[in-house]
């Protein structure tokens, strides 16, 4: 069961997802750059928590600890957006957005059929 991550942990995961596997602690801190003013200790605590939550594994290579994501970005996104992935087409009743197409999804076959029909109209 994957749980929703708090913002800070999510930021860390984003860095890990978007880098090569086995990223070192110092690289993570570097990637965060000046954007965050977290202390290294805070970052280590968050990484430990992410391991506990089953998002990461870590192994010690020499003097460096390396982190690898177990849950990949797409997997996590589909959990976090759950129904939204299929629901958020702008057709959900009364949603406060204006979508360009607010109808339902279609199968590839149906879309091709529509394209064909549109071509004939030209």
């Amino acid at each position, binding site marked *: 069961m994957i749980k929703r991550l708090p913002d800070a942990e999510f930021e860390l995961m984003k860095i890990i997802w978007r880098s090569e596997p086995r990223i070192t602690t110092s690289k993570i801190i570097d990637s965060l750059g000046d954007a965050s003013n977290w202390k290294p200790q805070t970052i280590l605590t968050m990484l430990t928590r992410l391991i506990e939550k089953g998002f990461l594994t870590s192994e010690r290579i020499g003097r460096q600890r390396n982190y690898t994501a177990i849950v990949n970005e797409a997997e996590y996104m589909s959990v976090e*957006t759950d129904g*939204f992935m299929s629901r958020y087409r702008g057709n959900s009743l009364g*949603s*406060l957005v*204006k979508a*360009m197409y607010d109808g339902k999804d279609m199968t*590839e076959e149906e879309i091709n059929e529509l394209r064909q029909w549109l071509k004939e109209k030209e």
Partner: protein
Amino acid sequence: MSQFFLSFLATSLFMTIIIAAVLIIRALLPNVFSPKIRYVVWIIILLGLIIPVRPFLGDGLVDFQLPFAVSTEGQTVPILSGTGSTGNSGITGSAAAGQNLPVQEPLVAAIPDGGIGMVSSLRALSVIEMLAIAWMVVALAVLAYHVWKHARFLGLVRRWGSPVDDKEALTILQGVLTEKGIAAKKIALKRCEFVSTSMIVGFFRPMILLPDNNFDADELEMIFHHELIHWRRGDLFVKLLSVIALSLNWFNPAVYIMNSVMQADCEASCDQLVIASVGNENKHFYAETIMEMIGYRSANVTALSTCFYGSRRGIKTRMEAIISTADNSKKVAIVTLATSLSTLVLVMGLVVFAGSVFIFSEQGQSDLERMTDVAAVDDGYDNDVYADVDDLNFDSPAFSFEQIEEDDKINVVFQLEDGTTARAFVNELGTISVLCDDGTISWATPRYPPGGTNISSEEAVEIAREDLIDRNVTAALGGLDYGWGEGIDISWEFEEVWVWVLLFYVQDESELRFRYLICTQTGDIIDYIQESPPFDIG
């Protein structure tokens, strides 16, 4: 709140009729009205759904009288419930105590007796109130759900959306903004994996979201035109109104149907404006760009296939409208301008004024007028005289009352123990009726003899004074009232006699009171009682 709820229901019902009429006309005459006109018609109706008040015109043609239909069970209460010595043990306990004169402290005494009627009418009222509360709770819940969903969506966008930093895309966006005359407007552009269509979101800090497709420059231009037209027209605010209308009218299926048709008309009118901006020669390309937005669904999902058929028909209708957009739209526009304007005026008239004719005979009538009518129906007389606080010696703790002026007439409003209110009226014969706010008669008591009086109140006072002088008592007149002598524990043959009830106080430490009952016809002293403290009545 019940009153508001009932008038809201009436409005919702009436708007449903208008919605049905518009849907039928739209289906029968699909090409007569431009999408823009249809969209504006829907917006007017939307406002009509949200705002339940209408100007009040005349007396209305159809009288709904809704509140009374709901509470008929609690309607009648015997006239004159307050004067029997057996019937009013509540406050005028003095009768039982041998001071056989319950008479007219009467209004106080009468109220507990009217309790039967009052209780059932309160029960009837609470049914409406319960419904009103249920309606409100669900409406708030629906609204909260929409807000929560929107907040959640924005949260997802914040996390997962990545700002588009592609120079070309931003240049195109700026170009379209300039073309639309809103070059200075800051519009954020984000790419989101989890949306399948481009969209615009944000009421004050708008943001265009793009799905994770690789749109080329021409497609982006179409998209930006489309979304910025939505933004500039304020379609997001219209959608906010839709959400509010849907929340309030959660029980009304017509409003759900209307919402989806309205969104279709909104898109269709937006499409027309896009084509007007990008040129008629680009309409096919524009249609193809929209096709890019249709999300893919895996073929093995078979549920609700009719829905998909419906949506396919929807998109086909939209495409057909786009590619059949006429080049010579100006000529057509002049032809339809008069029709369109008159349609709008008609709909607006229907929504605003017909509503008042139909519904607001009940709404527009002041509470006072409405209740006067009820009082009249009940006792058969015009209740054009209103009770005055001074008439009503109310001192029961069950009531607080205030005297308010409405329509230049004095109107006494009682606050009952449970927080509901009641009003007192006096009809031309002097019968006082107390009505609960839902129109049920709580109790009524006659105040004046039906045949008038031979002896005036001054004469009655004079008769009593002479009698007091005979008894060597000096007392000041403390109260004067009419009363109806039925049931008084006195040894007369006849069942009822109208009396003046006079109360005199001795102004010394003895605090003696003298009560006279003087027949209004003959001037006879029907009864004389000397009372001494403590008095049972407050």
